[in-house]
């Protein structure tokens, strides 16, 4: 297996070096870079699966001359699982990028794009494999830096630059918190190696554990995009080229989840105070709800998807949070189930979010715009992309035959097991969280009905959409690969659950594979079959059979009657594309119902005809929702610093005497103090 690890790292390293020094022919650079990334991804998949199956974790390490730093790598099931996710999406994204990068010929240097892409994947792989805190920090910051340079590939646009800078600063603040977390462990263990973190000589005092918990939540939460710290995400992810935003949204966020699980379940051990789990649960619920609500109001397809990443991170945290609560009360089997649900949703989200971003990328590639109001009728023009996007939409809305449903079902089950918990408060909170999860699920359904319906159906709303053509083969292949994985994960969970169980067992110290896979693998059950069970394959078969039945009924009763095509009913006038429902119109009821959260401001200007005030010549409608976090949290902070800087300018007032006085006063003060 260590040969596989070496092969993987060298392949990525080659991917970083080779495109940079190739002659500047974009086609060559593009081909070489992305094919190297693809092979490396496949190696990663193989290594991930090998790591999951391997009896005991593989560790190799390279010592370094810098104190406390050792380039140590450890492949335990948790790392292998995330490596598998990263590599799968990496393969799909690199196949997709072969076609998508042609858009950047001449606009950006392909050599740089290719090597940065490989570097980004390499840094993410190393983040997951790192076994030394210092090495983890280096690779973590490297990941942020490389993804920053990828986000600003189109740095001519001012908003892309702003998005990139906002992202870089937020992740750096996050890293400061992560550094403090590791320092708390470092102080006890005396070295940065994760082994010392896991088993410090004397266990951390209670106060330090809480500080470590909060620091880790804030630090990794910034990268994962939990609610108060999510504000950079809808700027940064859409600004990047689509195959990069697929990687960022689908996988980079997951490295933060990996790190959270590693710190909470691996380093802080099993005994949590009850309110830890509750805080994670609360953050998860709020992130899920607000994530989907803000997504509903977005009309830029890629930022809509970015907000959905916030929502799905919330759902993952719901799973992990419920797992932590059960761990507090010693219900290890349910804790394992909660963690397993969270991890299952992690891989599912990685798959369908990457698929949706690649789909959005194809739309952007075909129509050169991200505004949904200008799409329309693209399903007839881009059937492949449409079909893949539909599968993605159905799975993110967690509807039965697909993977989103299975993992959300598992999260529901872990929340419903709350009646085993002794404390009354939690007994009520968890079902409430389940209700909020249901609301999130169905709002996601509405949001993706809007996204798919407005973009792909009915008449094209702009000339861009009208002239759109199906994208190239490699892009379709990339999307199709992810779509197939989504369906397979949805229909055959009995393949995934045993692998996940191997990840969860060391943390919850109990194997629940037998209990979760009931009826010899056909059904999933939350630890006891009596409580509830779900059999995705049977549901899928049922749906197919009953559709056949419906077809049979139709043929039996009606016979084969040909359809007649005619224009849509428009109360007598022929419908034009301007009469279609727009995305804004679609979400207008939801905006009114949840207006307390949105605080929408609506502007309507009408130009009337000179002749009479009853006939409008032109009507302009504009609405925007209150960026609450930006307005009340981030802008005041930035304003405070600029104001402080302005006030402090007076120190450098230019007069020589003032400067001399500074030195004089310092001298006298120090002399008085020291002696």
């Amino acid at each position, binding site marked *: 297996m260590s040969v596989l690890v070496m092969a993987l790292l060298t392949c990525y390293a080659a991917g970083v070096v080779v495109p940079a020094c190739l002659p500047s022919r974009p086609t060559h650079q593009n081909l070489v870079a992305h094919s190297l990334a693809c092979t490396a991804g496949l190696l990663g998949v193989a290594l991930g699966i090998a790591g999951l199956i391997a009896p005991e974790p593989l560790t190799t390490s390279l010592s*370094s*001359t*810098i*104190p*406390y*730093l050792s380039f140590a790598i450890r492949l335990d099931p948790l790392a292998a699982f995330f490596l598998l996710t990263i590599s799968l999406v990496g393969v799909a994204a690199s196949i997709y990028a072969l076609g998508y990068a042609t858009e950047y010929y001449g606009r950006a240097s392909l050599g740089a794009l290719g090597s940065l892409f490989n570097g980004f994947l390499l840094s993410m792989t190393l983040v997951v494999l790192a076994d030394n805190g*210092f090495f983890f*920090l*280096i*690779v973590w*910051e*490297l990941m942020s*830096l490389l993804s920053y340079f990828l986000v*600003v590939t189109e*740095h*001519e646009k*001012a908003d892309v*630059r702003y998005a*990139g*800078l906002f992202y*870089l*600063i937020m992740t*750096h*603040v996050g890293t*400061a918190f992560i*550094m*403090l977390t590791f*320092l708390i462990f*470092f*102080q006890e263990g005396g070295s*940065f190696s994760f082994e010392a973190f896991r088993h410090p000589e004397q266990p951390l005092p209670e106060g330090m554990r809480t500080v470590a918990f909060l620091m880790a939540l804030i630090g990794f939460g910034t990268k994962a995009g939990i609610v108060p710290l999510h504000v950079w995400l809808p700027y940064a992810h859409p600004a990047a080229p689509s195959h990069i935003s697929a990687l960022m949204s689908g996988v980079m966020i997951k490295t933060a989840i990996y790190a959270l699980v590693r710190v909470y379940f691996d380093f802080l051990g099993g005994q949590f105070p009850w309110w830890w789990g509750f805080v994670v649960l609360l953050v998860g619920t709020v992130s899920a709800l607000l994530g989907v609500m803000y997504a509903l109001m977005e009309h830029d397809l890629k930022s809509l998807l970015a907000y959905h990443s916030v929502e799905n991170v919330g759902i993952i945290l719901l799973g992990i949070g419920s797992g932590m609560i059960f761990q507090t009360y010693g219900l290890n089997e349910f804790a394992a189930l909660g963690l397993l649900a969270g991890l299952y949703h992690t891989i599912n989200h990685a798959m369908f979010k990457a698929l949706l971003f690649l789909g959005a990328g194809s739309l952007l590639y075909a129509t050169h715009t991200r505004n949904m109001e200008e799409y329309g009728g693209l399903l007839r023009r881009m059937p492949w992309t449409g079909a893949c996007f539909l599968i993605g939409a159905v799975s993110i809305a967690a509807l039965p035959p697909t993977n989103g449903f299975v993992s959300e079902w598992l999260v529901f089950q872990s929340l419903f097991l709350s009646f085993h918990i002794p404390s009354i408060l939690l007994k009520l909170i968890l079902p409430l969280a389940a209700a909020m999860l249901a609301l999130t699920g169905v709002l996601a359904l509405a949001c993706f009905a809007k996204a798919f319906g407005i973009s792909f159906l009915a008449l094209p709303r702009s000339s861009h959409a009208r002239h759109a053509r199906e994208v190239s083969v490699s892009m379709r292949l990339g999307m199709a690969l992810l779509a197939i994985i989504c369906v397979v994960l949805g229909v055959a969970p009995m393949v995934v659950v045993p692998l996940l169980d191997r990840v969860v067992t060391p943390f919850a110290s109990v194997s629940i594979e037998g209990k979760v896979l009931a009826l010899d693998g056909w059904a999933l059950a939350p630890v006891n079959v009596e409580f509830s069970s779900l059999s995705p394959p049977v549901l899928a078969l049922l749906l197919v059979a009953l559709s056949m039945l419906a077809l049979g009924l139709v043929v039996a009763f009606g016979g084969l009657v040909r359809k007649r095509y005619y224009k849509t009913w428009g109360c007598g006038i022929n419908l034009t594309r301007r009469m279609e429902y727009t995305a804004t119109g679609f979400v207008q009821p939801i905006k009114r119902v949840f207006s307390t959260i949105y605080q929408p401001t609506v502007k309507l200007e009408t130009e009337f005809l000179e002749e009479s005030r009853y006939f409008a010549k032109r009507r302009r409608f504009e609405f925007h929702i209150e960026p609450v976090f930006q307005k009340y949290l981030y802008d005041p902070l930035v304003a405070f*610093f*600029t104001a*402080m*800087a*302005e006030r*402090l*300018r007076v*120190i*450098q007032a230019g007069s*020589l005497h*003032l*400067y*001399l006085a*500074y*030195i004089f*006063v*310092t*001298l006298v003060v*120090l*002399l008085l103090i*020291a*002696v």
Partner: protein
Amino acid sequence: MTWSLVLLVSTPVVAGFVSLLVGQRRAIEVLQCVQAGAMLVAAALVAERVVATGGVSAGNFLVSDSLSAWLDLIVGVVGSTGTLFAVGYMGEELDRAHVSLRRYSQFFCLFDLYLAAMLLAINIENIAIMWIAIEGSTLSAALLIGFDRSKAALEAGWKYVILSSVGIALALFGTILIYYSSEHVLGVSSEALRWSQLYQTAERLNPTAIKIAFIFALIGYGTKAGIAPMHTWLPDAHAEAPTPVSAMLSANMLTLAVYAILRFKAVTDRSVGSEFTGKLIIGLALLSLAVSATFFLVQRDYKRLFAYSSIEHIGIALLGFGIGGLGIFAGAWHLMNHALAKSMAFYGAGLVFLRHNHRLLDRVTGLLGRMPVAGIAILVAGVALAGMPPFGLFTSEVLIVAGAYTARPEVAYVFLALLALAFATLLFQVLRMALGAPGEAGTAVGGQCRVFTSTAVGINIVALGMIGLQVPSGLGTLLASIVKMFNLGIEAP
């Protein structure tokens, strides 16, 4: 191998006077390149010799122990790339007739004398002569700063002269105090001024005298090093001086002043214990970090921006030294990385100034598109100075935080907060310059200048990359012995 030390110190002096005498440009250029090469080779040889034998001495004056060898390396590498850049830069100024041939040769004479004074100061074992050498470098720098004879340059020069000479005078008083107290132990002789002697007899020196001497030295050399409350001359001097000079000021002069403070700290630690100096240095270091972090935001001039970044990084290095133990390793490591990154930043700034002829930050955009060399230099320097991983500054900052956390956790928290603020504000300015659509055209830079500057930038990038995540073996032993020098008894990891 003593000739390497002599060669190191004497080549700049010789080159300086010869370039003053010889008139034509071609000869000066060749001379400077040879001098740059010689300095680099000599510095490497000295360092290699010190690594091998632990110390090199030539005559009873020039002695180079591990700390001096470390500084020799820094001044050697950055000095040589600086000279290359100066040749390119001044050559361009000569082509554009901004400066006459006579001024051109005067510039190089002063430039070389400045380097010679610094190298002398590093390798002298006598604290008084070290003071004289530093005074010499201050005076030559003063003339270099006022080189342009514009109003602003004059004002900056004047402020630099007054503030630095006051600082140097205070430092002299510190030296006298140490001499005064060591005289009682070693008798009235030049022996009482040698570092090695002082280290041995430090326990027997009068503790209060040493404390007062350290304070004077800290304030005196602190003014030279640009530590907060005494940093006020630094932004003006760096902005108004010709760019090669501000590069050398930023990279070498500040590092030299920190070296002097470290020498005094070594003596004081042996006699009074490191607690006293630690508290002082940490206080001032955090103050300079705070001042520079807030001032990034209001900058309109990119050279002042890099000047404030120098104050910040000197503060970080000093914080490392103040913490001791692990911090010493990190501080020394930080000084070398900062020197390389900061000089590269100024090379980029120099190119931008040559093209745009103004220093307004807002009107310089899209460097990567129009001027790839300057753009890459500023971008890589900005990323390195902000403390991002592939470069050594990140590793040293993490080590400092780790060291600070074990010693005084609250210092670590304040340090991290200020670092984050400085990171955000510095990158906000640098990235505004590097990215975006190319702004106004300005006048293109001549071919010869581009060759010199890109070689200078190239050497710096290679050096930064090499010492990014790994400590080459030779440097490792040097750093170990430096740490031993300061940590009496605490074993470096």
